[in-house]
Every structure is written in structure tokens, then in C-alpha cells.
């Protein structure tokens, strides 16, 4: 990040290589549309570029980058809010390792798609992308305890839905 701030394009390429995939997965989770998420990913990297001065050495890079990506999604959602939304199509949502194997992949994604959005976001940020609850709190503007609560409730919902799916 310091090299990128110093003006190295190679450093930007390395940053993109390291972060584009998890960011795309995160944006897909938020937008629930992979094509939209791919557009948002490019927009997010433009915002990251414009705000690179704000990054301070010593701060973890990923919460900073994910927060900007979330902001880009929020702005996009605001712009799209006047148009009718469809939740029918489920995107390729990432699955937490804790529940992977408890059901078929499709069932897992369907269950994950049915978890409340704020709980699903906290759950995935913690269990899939490995953010601490302090980092999630800073990214979402909530207390770490609230982030933990959302994540654990999301996991509870997910397990409940998976057992319902298993029962048929």
C-alpha cells in the first residue's frame, strides 16, 4: 500500500490481484447480481485510488478497502432504488466453511440467501473473509458486540434453515 501511495502501478496491480476476488464475492453478496457486482468492483477500485491518501500505514488494508466497496454498493443501491428490485435470482454466494458440507451447495446458497441481509453480511465478513468483530464494527458503523450478535444470529438462522431443508 505504501508503494502504491508512492506512485507504483505494480503495487496497484498487486493490490488488485490480492483483493479483487474477495471484493467481488462481497459485492456479489451485497448486490445479489454478479454483473452488477463486477461493475461495482471497478467503481470501488476507482474510489480506492482516489482515496489512497487516506490510508495510514499500520491500519489493516482490508477493512479500509471493504468499507469503500460497501459505500460504492450503497451509492449504487440508492441510484437503483426507484427501479423495481428482484430477489428471485440467487447469485453465487460464498459459503462459510462451518456449514459447508451440511447440505447440497444449492441448498446452502438458498439458505444463505434467505438470511436477513445485515446478518448475512456480518456472518460472511467474519466467517468467510476472516474480519474481526472490531473491524466489522468499524466497517459497518456499529459496535463490535452488535457485529458479533448479527453474525451469530445469522449463523443460527442459517443452521435452522439448513435443518429445514434437510427435513424436506
Amino acid at each position, binding site marked *: 500500500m*505504501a508503494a502504491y*501511495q508512492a506512485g507504483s502501478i505494480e503495487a*496497484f496491480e498487486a493490490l488488485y490481484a490480492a483483493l479483487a476476488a474477495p471484493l467481488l464475492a462481497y459485492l456479489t453478496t451485497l448486490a445479489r447480481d454478479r454483473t452488477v457486482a463486477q461493475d461495482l468492483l471497478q467503481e470501488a477500485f476507482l474510489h480506492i485510488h482516489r482515496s489512497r491518501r*487516506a490510508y495510514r500505514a499500520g491500519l489493516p488494508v482490508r*477493512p479500509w478497502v471493504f468499507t469503500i466497496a460497501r459505500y460504492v454498493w450503497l451509492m449504487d443501491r440508492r441510484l437503483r432504488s426507484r427501479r423495481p428490485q428482484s430477489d428471485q435470482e440467487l447469485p453465487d454466494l*460464498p459459503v462459510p466453511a462451518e456449514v459447508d458440507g451440511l447440505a447440497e451447495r444449492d441448498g446452502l446458497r438458498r439458505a444463505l440467501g434467505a438470511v436477513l441481509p445485515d446478518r448475512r453480511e456480518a456472518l460472511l465478513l467474519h466467517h468467510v473473509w476472516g474480519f474481526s468483530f472490531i473491524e466489522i464494527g468499524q466497517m459497518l458503523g456499529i459496535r463490535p458486540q452488535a457485529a458479533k450478535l448479527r453474525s451469530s444470529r445469522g449463523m443460527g438462522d442459517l443452521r435452522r434453515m439448513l435443518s429445514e431443508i434437510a427435513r424436506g
Partner: protein
Amino acid sequence: MGEEQVRLPAELRDIIARDLHPVAPLGSPVRRAVGMLPLAVALLVAAVIVFGLRRDASRIGPFLTWGASIIQMLLGLALVAGALREAVPGTTLPRRMLGIAFGTAAIAVLTITFMTWTTSPTLIAPGYETRAWGICLTGTILSALPVLAVAGWLAARAYPLRPRIAGALYGIGAGLLADAGWRLFCHFSHPTHVLGAHTLGIVLSGIIGVVGATVVSRRSSVSSR
């Protein structure tokens, strides 16, 4: 979870490469807020130097005169530091902390108002109320403007993703810094005057911060498209 490799689009790489130049990383929010200390001290003593110390200073004592103003000044700087932290992506303040920040500011202002009034109840001479109200309201807002400008610039240089919250924080902070000096000159301690003119000035400064931060944020997002 295995994640696929996402290719960097050539168009995005070109845009970044064209615009890429070295930037100096920002300092910590606290350090940048402390950098505003000379301005805060100047505001604290400006009204006293120009108009003189409040007439009831000997009656209310050094704690309620200088002590209360210094506490208010430090609180104002803390709010500005909070705004500068809020302006950095990934370090946004939780709602509870925002509530504590605004709540502490409100409690401090009300406590200082009440203590000063009970120690030295000073009424405004009949017929002079409106003029005193206008002088103190205008004085507080005008004194807050330099802080609003500097703090607004510092916050905008970060990348506030919630500009209204950052603006409210540094706006109220600027109002507190301005009133910390203005109350050292104004000896009218009646709560209707203090709350109706001085505190209203702090609130209006907060509103100016919100509006200013929102306008700057919209302009920068439009110009960067």
C-alpha cells in the same frame, strides 16, 4: 473457500496509470486535530483580548471562567478529532460512540450554563435582549467559521463516506471552540440568553458543518466522474 482470480481490466489499469502520482499519507486524526490547537487557543483568547474578560469573572472564579472554557475547548477538539477519524474509510464511528460524543457536548454545555447561572445570575437590561442575542449568536457563528473551514478541508482530504456525520461532528466541535472564547467575554448568564444565543450558535455551526460537508462531498463525487 477457494476464490477465482479476477483479471485487472486494461481500461481500469490505464485510468489508474494515467492518474498515478505519489501522495503523502494523512497523519492520525488525533495528531491532525492537535495541529488545530493554536487556532483553538487563538479563539479562546480573541474575544477577551478584543472586548475584555466578562465582568463577573471575579464572582464566578477561575474554574467557571477559564476552567469551563478550557474544558469546552478540549471537548471541541475531541469532536474535531472524531470527525477526522470518521472521515477515514474503515474507521467509522459506531452509533453509540456518536451518541456519547454529542451527548457529552450537550451535557457539558448545559452543566456550564447551569453552574454559571447559579453562581452569578446576570440578567440582560430590558430593551437590550434582542441586541445581546444578535451579538452573541453572530459572534459565535463568525468565530466558528475558521475552524469549520480548516476542519472541513482536513476531513474532505481523507475520504468521508458519511459526510453528514463527519460534518456534524466538526461543526459542533467548531461551535464549542468558538463559544469557549465567546463566553469569556459575555457575562449574561441567564439560561434563555445562553441557550438561545450561544448554544443556538453551536447548533447552527453543526448545521453549517453538515451542509458544507455534504456539498463538498457531492462536488468531489461529480468532478471525479
